């Protein structure tokens, strides 16, 4: 698998959630292709130096969310039917939560609705312009 994942054990976010988000992101962006095999639980646990049950939980939840298929003896594979859609939805969710947090923070710092809108517009202009050029 070409995608390299990293975990930050010093973060307050549980490691399994960090990994789920990264794998979904990689699937949504196509870094991991549909049908591609994921490492075994043991291999990924050793590669990242994280607990094997943590990785097993990640795979269980990814299967539950329709991103991967696991068959005993064969391994775990990115689903060919709709894994990308599921993953894209999940990544959009991450973006929504992050954006919501930023707006909540702006409000709690005392910015008015207009000031926050202005800030959002300026930030969007800055990032989307460079990408579309």
């Amino acid at each position, binding site marked *: 698998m070409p995608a390299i994942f990293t*975990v930050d*054990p*010093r*973060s*307050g*976010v*549980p*490691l*399994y*959630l960090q990994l789920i988000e990264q794998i979904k992101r990689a699937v949504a962006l196509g870094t991991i292709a549909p049908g591609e095999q994921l490492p075994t*639980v*043991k291999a990924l*646990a*050793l590669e990242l*130096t*994280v*607990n*094997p*049950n*943590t990785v097993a*939980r990640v795979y269980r939840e990814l299967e539950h969310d329709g991103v991967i298929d696991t068959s005993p003896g064969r391994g775990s594979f990115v689903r060919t039917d709709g894994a990308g859609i599921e993953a894209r939805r999940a990544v959009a969710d991450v973006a929504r939560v992050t954006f919501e947090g930023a707006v909540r*923070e702006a409000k*709690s*710092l*005392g910015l008015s609705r207009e000031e926050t809108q202005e800030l959002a517009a300026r930030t969007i202009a800055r990032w989307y312009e460079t990408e579309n050029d």
Partner: protein
Amino acid sequence: MAALISLKRLTKRYGSFTAVDDVSLEVEEGSICGLLGPNGAGKTTTFKCLLGFAKPSGGTIAIEGAPVTPATFESLAYVPERATLYDNLTIAEHLELYRRSYKNYDAARAAELLALFDLDPGKRAKRLSKGMRTAVALTLAFSIRPRVLILDEPSSGLDPVHQRNVLDLMIDAAANGAAVLFSSHQVGQVERAADSVAIMKRGKLIVNSGIDDLKTGEKIIEAVFAGPIPDIGDLAADPRILRAEQVGATLRVATRDDSDDIAQRIFALHPKSIRTIDLNLEEIFMNAVSGDQH
């Protein structure tokens, strides 16, 4: 999943001093439990009782579902905080002792471990540094492919690369079905390698939880008020709240569960701003051992 390590209401008293106070703990097959606690919290005494090196004053112990007997050590490896080696024997001679004593001894595995820790088998134990002694003890422990591993500060004296190797050895053992119980002063190691965490303080087990649940549950809610902080009422006595402190116009509340619900109730007191802060294991550990509750 079967519990390979099981302590039920373990108590160990030395005269009037209670070193281990009513501790119950289980480590399942394929699982790694990290035991944290300040010096003198009772971690090593717990290990000694577990291994039959100290006689419990109360409670029961089971390894692989049975009381500890000499046969238990066929599939159990223990690495003490200070490795006990024979000063005049070489590393190779220590391995030879293991080969003769353990039917599960795996020579190929032992050779891999020597290479992993950069150990020269011809060196005598008395000429080894503290870190190298730890590495030898670990090599011996993992050479018998144990089902149960009890490791007391298994990375003391090791450099960061070899510390990472120790974590990988534990992870590999657990992935193959072993149960691992290890103590550490390095919270980051526990955070990576363990799926459950136990925290001891003054002989008592004050935290015993899955690591993800612990991190999901424990949060700090910080609310800033425009004027004086209003009375938080019955929230003050809420068992889900570990601590509440006020600094100027800021109210900081540490929660154990349901932080969203508690945040909403604080929000109802009309703070100027409110935010929920995720805690890492180190902060959770510091909160647990510094508080006077429990």
